[in-house]
């Protein structure tokens, strides 16, 4: 707790809360990262669920690099946003729910990659997507949507700092 109070009073944390530009700029990165992670995850899930059947799974390889880049950008910008409110954020339910949903989204993407292991090079026409992969794809869509809802709610529900 003392550490969080110290963090809140650092020059950077104070600047993030009080400057005109700190928050908007960090949120720009957070929005671009979100679009990359969620957008690419949605498109890959659509493919797994049977959309654009002529596309092989390997064709998405380069996009996964971009999605990981977006994820790293959001982890970094997310940490900066957390540093701006180190005492209020961890007691905001929407923030905690968002973190849990991101973990679940990550786990479903991992489960999806496990369920599709060895199928990357299968020609698109011969690919039979197992049911487990489809379930994981739906789960990832649901969890990303949930994370976006919870993230949007943080701004509306963040409370006063604990005494």
């Amino acid at each position: 707790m003392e550490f969080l109070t110290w963090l809140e009073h650092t020059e950077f944390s104070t600047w993030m809360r009080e400057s005109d530009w700190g928050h908007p700029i960090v949120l720009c990165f957070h929005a671009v990262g979100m679009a990359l992670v969620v957008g690419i995850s949605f498109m890959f899930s659509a493919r797994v669920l049977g959309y654009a059947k002529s596309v092989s799974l390997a064709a998405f390889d380069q996009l996964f690099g971009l999605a990981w880049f977006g994820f790293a950008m959001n982890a970094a910008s997310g940490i900066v946003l957390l540093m701006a409110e180190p005492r209020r954020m961890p007691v905001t339910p929407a923030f905690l729910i968002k973190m849990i949903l991101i973990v679940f989204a990550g786990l479903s993407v991992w489960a999806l990659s496990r369920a599709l292991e060895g199928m990357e090079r299968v020609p698109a026409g011969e690919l039979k997507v197992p049911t487990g992969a489809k379930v994981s794809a739906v789960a990832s869509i649901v969890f990303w949507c949930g994370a976006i809802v919870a993230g949007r709610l943080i701004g509306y529900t963040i409370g006063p700092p604990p005494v």
Partner: protein
Amino acid sequence: MTEADILHWIRDTSLGVAVRQSRWMFATGETLHFLGLSLLVGGILIVDLRILGFLRHISMRSALSFLPFVIVGFVINMLTGILFFAADPMMYWPNPAFKLKMFLILLAGINALVFTLVEHRHALPLGEDDQATTFMKVSAGLSLSFWLLVLLLGRLLPAFEGSTSFL
């Protein structure tokens, strides 16, 4: 009717009144706006990166088959955008970030229209590993740039609330 009359009229429409009185409509609209932009960006990435020469293992026809996601995302964001605007037209209208964002959406639309009318049928037969023409690549590069700027300006919009110019 002057500009102010029109803005007042929009503010007083039943939509504007409803959004301002509701506790949840604006926040729900914002959440849908994020989902819409994710769909738009996800779809446009596949189309534009393929045209630019990445994602070579996707035939152009397959890449272009992701366009419906872009259109659905755009429609979601246009509708939720109208909802935001109706709630507070006097804030949005003079806002320079809003004006530039709308202008860039217009440019992105014209760019997409030109591609559809001039290049779409030449692009469709391009198979895996086939290169797009320079004209197509310029169009795809512009599209990615416009949408990235639209996203950033949208995010920066509240920071320009109350200003009438960027400087």
